């Protein structure tokens, strides 16, 4: 492994998909020019650096490919300023996938059972002279019953990957342009569509230019100190280097200090436990997409959202109380955090938010050889603060905080909702007062933050890595971790 680590080549960069890799290349080139102050004059050259040669590899011709790269550069430099949402559709990149709904495929063997016909309440299924089934689109309501009962799985549901990814139904087809469109009144900026679109036609706006500006203005901490607050899910990323080396790389970029968001999670768990005892029923407030979902779709439960800031904002507030001139950049797996930092309650504390994808691009734009660096350290939070990164971690932490506060007689009945669909079910029950729980841990991404769209990797081993990272914590209890912050004084 040591030998492998000694050679940081592009091959070692791990991305789940080539869409992520393409997006990364654009971000890296934009960052490179921004650091060198050559962005304005190089704007048109970036596309040529990424789309080389004469033969198209992604679209119909290299000119369309370059036009789309132009749009990606726009997203990398902040996107459409008139659109308040941080998630945007790149119209010309959308492949306008067919939206056929349920269709009988060639797998239909023309059997004689006709389960599909019997189960269809709308009478939409007929048979041709070869006994093969057909669906009358005028009658079909896309209930999917026929597909469920077909013994040959011969009925498929053709839906756009973006629409399928968006469990809250904020994406639809624009009837005029046929491209995907996002309903901002429903969208919670979770970024599921960004990760799922196979053409990379939906993207999160990037604020790397703001961050590069801060890095330059800080001038290595001479003018003000620049803090990186990193999410605990970082432990499952950057598989080709050690976490300590990534910390050193962040400092090499120009950050004065790297602080764990997990430390803020310790503070939040401690406060949230106390709030829960006081109010009796609470939903978590860590996941900005979940909070946005509750506010948009379940307004009656709005008062039950924990009034605590998120771990990111909580630790940022603590840093700014101690260093009022400092500036803070959050680095995590999350696109919704880019919305959260715009909130009036959070704006004073956090100056910008980056994803791990963007961090990778920034580090590489400066040609920092991560795998060759000495290892820095990152340690303040407890085990409990760190496991916030995966589903179930927050509930464990609140249970621990109750114990540490001597509120063990409080009967904690948590429900950990893994992904926005589970959140919806729990919230639906809670809104009708039939949820047998008193604490909803809501995570919009499946698996928790480790499933976030800004992650470099999304693998089954990520959860174990977060747990292992948690166990390495120097402080074993939440109270120990937060004792210096004025909370939970021993």
């Amino acid at each position, binding site marked *: 492994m040591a030998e492998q680590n000694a050679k940081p080549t592009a091959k070692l960069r791990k991305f789940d998909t080539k869409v992520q890799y393409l997006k990364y290349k654009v971000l890296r080139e934009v960052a490179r020019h921004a650091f060198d102050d050559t962005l304005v004059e190089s704007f048109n050259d970036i596309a040529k650096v990424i789309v080389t040669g004469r033969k198209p590899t992604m679209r119909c011709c290299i000119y369309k490919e370059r036009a789309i790269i132009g749009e990606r550069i726009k997203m990398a430099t902040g996107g459409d300023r008139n659109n308040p949402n941080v998630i945007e559709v790149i119209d010309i990149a959308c492949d306008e996938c067919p939206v056929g709904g349920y269709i009988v495929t060639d797998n239909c063997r023309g059997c004689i059972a006709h389960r599909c016909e019997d189960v269809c309440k709308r009478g939409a299924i007929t048979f041709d002279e070869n006994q093969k089934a057909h669906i009358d689109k005028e009658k079909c309501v896309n209930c999917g019953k026929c597909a469920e009962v077909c013994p040959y799985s011969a009925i498929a549901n053709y839906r756009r990957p973006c629409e399928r990814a968006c469990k809250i139904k904020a994406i639809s087809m624009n009837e005029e342009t046929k491209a995907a469109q996002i309903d901002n009144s429903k969208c919670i900026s979770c970024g599921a569509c960004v990760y799922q679109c196979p053409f990379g036609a939906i993207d999160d706006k990037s604020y790397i230019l703001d961050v590069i500006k801060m890095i330059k203005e800080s001038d290595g*901490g001479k003018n003000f100190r620049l803090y990186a607050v990193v999410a605990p899910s970082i432990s499952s990323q950057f598989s080709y280097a050690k976490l300590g080396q990534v910390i050193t790389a962040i400092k090499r970029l120009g950050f004065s200090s790297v602080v764990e968001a997990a430390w803020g999670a310790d503070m939040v768990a401690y406060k949230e436990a106390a709030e829960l005892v006081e109010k009796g029923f609470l939903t978590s407030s860590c996941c900005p997409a979940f909070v946005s979902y509750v506010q948009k779709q379940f307004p009656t439960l709005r008062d039950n959202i924990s009034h605590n800031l998120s771990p990111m904002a909580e630790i940022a507030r603590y840093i700014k109380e*101690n260093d009022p001139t400092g500036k803070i950049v959050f680095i995590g797996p999350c696109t919704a955090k880019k919305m959260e930092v715009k909130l009036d309650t959070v704006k004073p504390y956090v100056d910008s938010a980056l994803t791990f994808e963007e961090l990778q691009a920034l580090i590489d734009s400066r040609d920092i050889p991560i795998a060759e660096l000495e290892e*820095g350290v990152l340690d*303040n939070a407890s085990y409990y603060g760190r496991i916030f990164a995966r589903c179930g971690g927050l509930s464990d932490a609140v249970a621990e905080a109750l114990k540490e506060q001597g509120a063990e007689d409080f009967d904690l009945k948590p429900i950990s909702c893994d992904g926005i669909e589970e959140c919806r079910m729990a919230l639906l029950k809670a809104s009708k007062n039939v949820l047998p729980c008193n604490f909803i841990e809501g995570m919009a991404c499946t698996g928790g933050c480790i499933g976030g769209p800004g992650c470099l990797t999304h693998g089954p081993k990520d959860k174990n890595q977060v747990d292992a990272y948690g166990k390495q914590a120097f402080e074993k209890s939440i109270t*120990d971790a937060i*004792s*210096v912050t004025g909370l939970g004084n021993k």
Partner: protein
Amino acid sequence: MKVYVCVGSSCHLRGSYDIINLMKKNIAERQLEDKVELSAAFCLGKCTDGVSVKFEDEVVCGVNKENFDDIFSEYVLNRLN
């Protein structure tokens, strides 16, 4: 006077919480709450041995439980007098 104890990761692992508790204890025992303002600092950029503490504008490195009393006398008590 303002006293900042570094709570950055490196100092944290070397016991900055112990130093903060000693600071609090010594300040309370001598009733210096009005005169000494204790804050946290995030990495003073001197990640050497022991904990870094900043007294006004002067950074002192390598503070530990053993040398705490001497340092507290020199940098806090002497200066206040």
